């Protein structure tokens, strides 16, 4: 993979996130979208190049899937930036894309193409949907953290330069959208993976990763119920997202390291 492109993408995202730490200047804020977009374009080019070399979708090896996740998170950041009229979310969301990209850069660069003999359209759908779900939950985590920060500052009457962050209502709406999108993607991914695996080998015992994915699904199912059906808002709803994503990351890393990735 072309690491120079990825380093350039990393730097442009870092710069975009860092701009929010600079003094509040509309001129500087206008640079956020071009910088994030530049990073997205560079990451996309590197991924496309990698995909062409492998002759398959560049999402099956760990490095590519992390790069794809980073790309999704950066796109989500652009969406959030637009939805909040550019109010400071990039500082909280882009670090996730930066970490994903940095980890991808540290991983060994060359991978053999995955064997596609038994694949149907369901397997790529399974992988892509799960990655989309992960990205959406990551974004919802970031948005929830901002929600908790803003709510805390309002409660404590720490009001200086609060206007640089989005309002609670906007954050809550954004969080709901990310959660709903993530939940829909996760459900589709699990369904596609389940059907594909069953079609190959028939019903079989579920591994620990599958069980933990189902736990995550159940958690977000409750989160969706609380938000959409129960109509609950505020810190409770944000807390659901934060705990859910933290658990998801810890679980994935723990299981990945301890047991290897399923499949």
């Amino acid at each position, binding site marked *: 993979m072309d690491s120079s492109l990825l380093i350039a993408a990393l730097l442009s995202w870092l710069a975009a996130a860092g701009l929010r730490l600079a003094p*509040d*200047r*509309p*001129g500087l804020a206008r640079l956020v979208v071009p910088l994030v977009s530049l990073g997205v374009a560079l990451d996309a080019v590197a991924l496309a190049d990698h995909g062409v070399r492998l002759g398959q979708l560049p999402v099956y090896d760990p490095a590519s899937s992390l790069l794809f996740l980073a790309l999704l998170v950066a796109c989500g950041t652009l969406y959030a930036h637009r939805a909040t009229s550019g109010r400071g979310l990039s500082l909280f969301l882009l670090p996730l894309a930066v970490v994903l990209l940095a980890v991808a850069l540290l991983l060994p660069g060359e991978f053999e193409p995955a064997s596609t003999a038994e694949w149907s359209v369901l397997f790529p759908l399974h992988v892509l949907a799960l990655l989309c779900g992960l990205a959406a939950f990551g974004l919802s985590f970031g948005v929830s953290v901002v929600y908790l920060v*803003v709510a805390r500052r*309002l*409660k404590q*009457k720490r*009001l*200086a*330069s*609060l*206007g640089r*962050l*989005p*309002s*609670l*209502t*906007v954050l809550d709406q954004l969080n709901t959208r990310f959660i709903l999108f993530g939940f829909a993607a996760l459900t589709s991914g699990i369904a596609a993976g389940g059907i594909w695996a069953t079609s190959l080998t028939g019903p079989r015992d579920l591994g620990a990763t599958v069980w933990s994915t189902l736990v995550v699904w159940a958690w977000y199912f409750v989160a969706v119920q609380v938000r959409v059906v*129960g*109509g*609950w*808002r*505020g*810190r*409770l709803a944000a807390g659901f997202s934060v705990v859910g994503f933290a658990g998801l990351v810890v679980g994935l890393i723990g299981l990945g390291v301890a047991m290897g990735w399923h499949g």
Partner: protein
Amino acid sequence: MIGEFELACVGLNHRTAPVELRERFAVASDQLSVHYEELRRADVPETVILSTCNRVEFYALVPSDEQRLIDHLARWRGMRRRQLEPHLYRHLGVEAVTHLFRVASSLDSMVLGEPQILGQVKEAFRGAEDARSAGRILHLLMRRALTVAKRVRTETAIGREPVSMGRAGVELARQVFGKLEGRGGLMVGAGEMGRLVARSLLDHGVEELVVANRTYARAVELAQRFGGTAAHLDQLERYLEQVDIVLTSTGSTEHLLTRKVLGRVMRTRRFRPLFCVDLSVPRNIDPACNDLEGAFVFNVDDLSRVAAQGMERRKQEAELAEDIVRSEAQRCYQSLGARSADPIIAAMTRRAESARVAELARSEAVLATMTAEQRDVVRAMTRSMFKRFLHHPIQVARKAGAYGDDSALGVLGQVFEGEE
């Protein structure tokens, strides 16, 4: 100097003159043309008058100094110059440009960064243009002033922070709800501060206002004034479940909203945010209500603090804005000065063109032997030669104008404007 003239500004404002004097010198819009006409007769070719509640200012191109403008003002209101002059400020040249840019950018306003002044400057400019009193120079100057003011608004946060209690309430509500359009408010009591904040919230998008008061007739009266609904105090809990914003401003010495009541309300609301501003002293909302999930309670001190922070922030931004204004004023004054070379440049071009035409006429016999295309080529070539030849002298003339180099302009004038 801009050619034979100088740019001058004479005026009085809230800092130099008491309101009695300011109202005496305020220029009504139907009186503007009279002033413009009189000043034209006094050899002041271009004038723009800016008259607002805080200032009356005359920007003009004057033959030497600003004395004519002061004489005009004194004569107009029948005052002696001696009486008037202590209340006036006067600026010449680049100082006048800087002052106009500061005024348009709201750096000279009573409330730093207030947005109305830009519209007032625009209005003054339009009035002068209608009366044909803003000529080439003031037209350029005013256009530039509007651009600089917009640049200051875009590149600094001078107008962004709230500096009044009303705006502070609006900004805090926006931090909770984002846009206030479609939000409902409940005003409990009829205190002056409550009415002020309620008006601000309504001006910024809040659509419905319920007014509750111990005296129902007073609630009805206020509701009519704000275009809202009147309610009895005992209906408070019902309305608290529906609205998004609560303002309390009563003389009650007890908490009208206790933690127990609001806790019940918040559960019914499923913790949908409720923004409360308690403007009463003693307070009407139990401060412990702020601990409830979804309830955000602010008091009069919080709003004052937000307004004070806003003013402090505007002052910091003003320093940046002053830098922009200074550099823009310098550049603008130079470009206005460069315009004083326009007559010389026009003479250069005229003389070159007449020479070109004369030479072509002398060669008419030779040109007649050529084809139409060849003649066009020769004409284009001569035009291009003169243009190239004049490029450098024109640059020198512009530079001399920009830096007020009268001797260079004089020499160029003698060379090109004299008789052949």
